[in-house]
């Protein structure tokens, strides 16, 4: 086995957290809480390392001998200004928050607008990409639920037959979503079990 110490630590930690979840013994609960606390701290450190990685990547693009990227310079400049202001004023400062959200929210809203156009265009071209019954069902259900959720049929909800039909139609996606989510839950369980068994190791050790 490669990296036996790292694998043993990962399996032992995973088992303690799992058993602590199922069996409410105070000793196990305490160890589980400590391990999860360490996990949160490590995730915070990992986020910091990730941001350093992001800045180094863009620094390389700025200083590359060919095809220098000016947008990367803009990113580094924005990062330095934001971190300097955040350190000087504190991340909870109202003015700092106001400036950051005043830039970030319109940018992300613009991207959402582009996304809406992209999805509308993709739906028009769907039959070029997908052929068969599933694509037809996908388009019909998309159109049907656009109609239902638009409120256009709400006036007919006074009619008992129409109300029953609308209730039945609204239950359809719930049933489908639950089916897909159950499959994903089982897949997640199998992935976790492989890591607990040491056969799937997302770390090289």
């Amino acid at each position, binding site marked *: 086995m490669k990296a036996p110490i790292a694998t043993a630590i990962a399996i032992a930690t995973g088992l303690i957290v799992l058993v602590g979840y199922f069996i409410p013994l105070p000793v196990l609960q305490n160890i589980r809480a400590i391990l999860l606390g360490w996990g949160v701290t490590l*995730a915070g450190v990992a986020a910091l390392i990730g941001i350093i990685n992001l800045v180094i990547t863009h620094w390389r693009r700025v200083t590359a001998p060919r095809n220098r990227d000016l947008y990367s310079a803009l990113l580094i400049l924005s990062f330095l200004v934001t971190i300097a202001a955040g350190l000087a004023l504190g991340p909870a400062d109202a003015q700092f928050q106001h400036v950051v959200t005043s830039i970030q929210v319109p940018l992300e809203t613009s991207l959402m607008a582009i996304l809406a156009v992209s999805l509308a265009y993709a739906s028009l071209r769907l039959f070029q990409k997908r052929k068969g019954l599933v694509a037809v069902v996908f388009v019909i259900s998309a159109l049907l639920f656009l109609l239902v959720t638009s409120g256009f049929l709400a006036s007919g909800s006074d009619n008992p037959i129409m109300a029953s039909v609308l209730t039945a139609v609204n239950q359809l996606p719930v049933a489908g979503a639950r089916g897909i989510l159950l499959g994903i839950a089982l*897949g*997640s369980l199998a992935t976790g079990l492989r890591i607990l068994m040491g056969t799937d190791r997302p770390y090289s050790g």
Partner: protein
Amino acid sequence: MISFNTIAGLLVVLIGAGAIFLFALFDRKKSPRALRPIAAFQGLRRAIGLAVEDGKRLHVSIGNANILSPNSASALVGLSTLNRIAQLSMISDRPPIATSGEGSLAILSQDTLRGAYRSGNALEQYDPMRARLAGTTPMSYIAGTIPIVHDESVSANVLVGSFGSEVALLTDAIDQKNAFSLAASDSLTAQAALYATANETLIGEELFAIPAYLQAGPYYTSSLHAQDVLRWIVIAAILVGSALKLVGIV
């Protein structure tokens, strides 16, 4: 006092672990059972082969799930996929590139690439900058990944992990470059957006089958068979529960 839910959960975990172990043991003694053909995986294998032949790059995007959150399983599948793709494309002139939207995933993807090259005795090919954090929010992650698709001679993209509907911006950019995309997510909204925009989309639990279909190892195949067993148990439990509810027992 241990509740019924806890006992049921523990039973599912134990049955799942037992089934993975038994299927792995069974498959080791006899030839492993065949997996049903899925067109998306045939397309992926072809795209990997073409990328290696043409000297183009493969891009694996593993989403922005927090490793401590319940949806981290999809990111772990993304890491297994990255490992296998790095192994399959080791002879390529251009090594694969990985992007993620969360710090711990960026570190794990660097470690995964390093492990893949070390196991292939090609550690000199490893460059930590090939596994990048593209952005820390869902939108900045997508905005940071699009230039990679455009600028780094990428011919095949594998998007496996936790995404939102904004992933459609990335698949749209891939489409504009006439590159291949296979996408799988644990999010329902992302699955709907990807179905309309990606070349190949995996729905639901097919996401967890990627490493098995890329022949990453026998335990991946046995865990697929274990999922089938658990699925039948869940179906039986739903039917029995419905019947009991119908006759008024519960």
